């Protein structure tokens, strides 16, 4: 990256693209970029043609296993790579009425996993009520994606580790690196120290300990225009460093590829890395990851109740290609009989060992 643009991006990154009225806040603009450039010029193949080679076009769901609900785009952080364009300035928050509709679905779904995400889901004023109600549905695996710093952000969140424990929530948290420099560069100054403190507090109530049933997994996203390395090797390095330096335990590490949308797309373009990154994604295309990409077993629900194939499509406003498009009309059989909406960002899910919210897929 040119040294001179770094401070510019850093300064701008304190606000969401939306608040900055950046042109990439428009999903049409993002899709135009994803469909143009080296793809329009025929230098790189479109994702649909690539998966057609192995008989996967149109891409179809398998059995629904994961219901992922995004309870709002508000967040205490403004990470540079965020695909949600989340931040304190985002006002899109799921209402209690929409949560009621979600609970109805949670009680009747065939999915074994419920996955709450955001923004920082904890910032939704009805978050605790929602977790309490959802936990009663007895779903097998109940995930909350917590960014860790929220636990230390304000006194009212200090008891979150106990709250999660009480409802047997599976905590999945992002941690870009085990060194301070890299973490703070991607997520903001002070994030590393707060995250370490939050992890220690989760450990203290039993989360992430070797034989504990209170699951604590970490998510690793590369802090820049490169792909994640081998998930197992990264997990080994993270475990060793976090244990030796901070006496922290956790269960698994999920290595997740940054998809070229939203703020990460903005970063790629501003740092003149976009083309190289798309080449790298296409180059790393792994046909054996296609059958298990996340959208084949997941439905994503937005803060306002719309249904999507995944959280990425949600951020691109690509609603499901089904006559059921909203949680109020939810019908799993009808939904499962759909073609998944794809574009070139999907190459992020099929690169290398593949990538999903649960880590590698191939």
């Amino acid at each position: 990256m040119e040294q001179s643009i770094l401070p510019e991006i850093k300064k701008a990154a304190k606000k969401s693209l939306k608040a900055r009225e950046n042109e990439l806040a428009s999903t049409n603009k993002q899709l135009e970029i994803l469909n143009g450039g080296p793809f329009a010029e025929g230098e790189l193949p479109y994702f649909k043609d690539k998966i057609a080679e192995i008989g996967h076009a149109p891409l179809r769901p398998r059995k629904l296993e994961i219901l992922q609900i995004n309870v709002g785009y508000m967040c205490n952080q403004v990470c540079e790579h965020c695909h949600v364009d989340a931040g304190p300035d985002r006002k899109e928050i799921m209402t209690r009425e929409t949560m009621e509709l979600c609970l109805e679905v949670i009680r009747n779904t065939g999915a074994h996993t419920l996955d709450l995400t955001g923004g920082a889901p904890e910032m939704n004023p009805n978050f605790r009520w929602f977790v309490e109600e959802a936990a009663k549905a007895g779903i097998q695996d109940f995930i909350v994606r917590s960014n860790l710093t929220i636990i230390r952000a304000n006194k009212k969140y200090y008891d979150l580790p106990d709250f999660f424990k009480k409802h047997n929530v599976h905590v999945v948290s992002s941690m870009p690196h085990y060194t301070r420099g890299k973490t703070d560069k991607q997520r903001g100054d002070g994030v590393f120290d707060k995250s370490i403190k939050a992890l220690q507090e989760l450990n203290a109530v039993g989360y992430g300990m070797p034989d504990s049933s209170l699951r604590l997994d970490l998510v690793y996203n590369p802090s820049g225009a490169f792909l994640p390395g081998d998930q197992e090797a990264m997990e080994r390095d993270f475990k060793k460093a976090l244990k030796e330096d901070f006496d922290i335990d956790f269960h698994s590490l999920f290595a997740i590829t940054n998809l070229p949308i939203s703020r990460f797309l903005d970063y790629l373009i501003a740092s003149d890395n976009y083309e190289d990154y798309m080449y790298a994604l296409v180059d790393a295309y792994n046909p054996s990851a296609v059958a298990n990409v996340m959208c084949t077993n997941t439905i994503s629900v937005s803060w306002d109740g719309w249904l999507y194939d995944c959280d990425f499509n949600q951020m691109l406003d690509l609603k499901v290609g089904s006559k059921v498009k909203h949680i109020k009309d939810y019908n799993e059989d009808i939904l499962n009989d759909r073609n998944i909406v794809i574009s070139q960002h999907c190459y992020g899910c099929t690169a290398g060992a593949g990538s999903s919210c649960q880590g590698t897929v191939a």
Partner: protein
Amino acid sequence: MANSYYDPADLRKFGKITEWSEELGTKFFDYYGKVFEEGALSAREKSLIALAVAHVVKCPYCIDAYTKDGLERGITKEEMMEAVHAGAAIESGATLVHGVQMMNKYNKLSM
């Protein structure tokens, strides 16, 4: 035609060398791939060795490739810089150890 000897975009065309000599190209890439697998040395250690050698042979393509490879493996910039110094130290040491040859010759020729 590029007006410079090195074009960063050429790196992603590296695989094309196989087109003009299928057998040798394929054998090279098989060998190359095998070398960097986990072995008695970890793939991470080999990545750092590759980075050091890339600097010693001053190959801009290899420097780009192994800086990125290091980032992907979570190698820190401090580790990368130490690897570069290890390469540089050997390279300058290799120059300086020839100073002994110079000394020998000097002594032999001098009365």
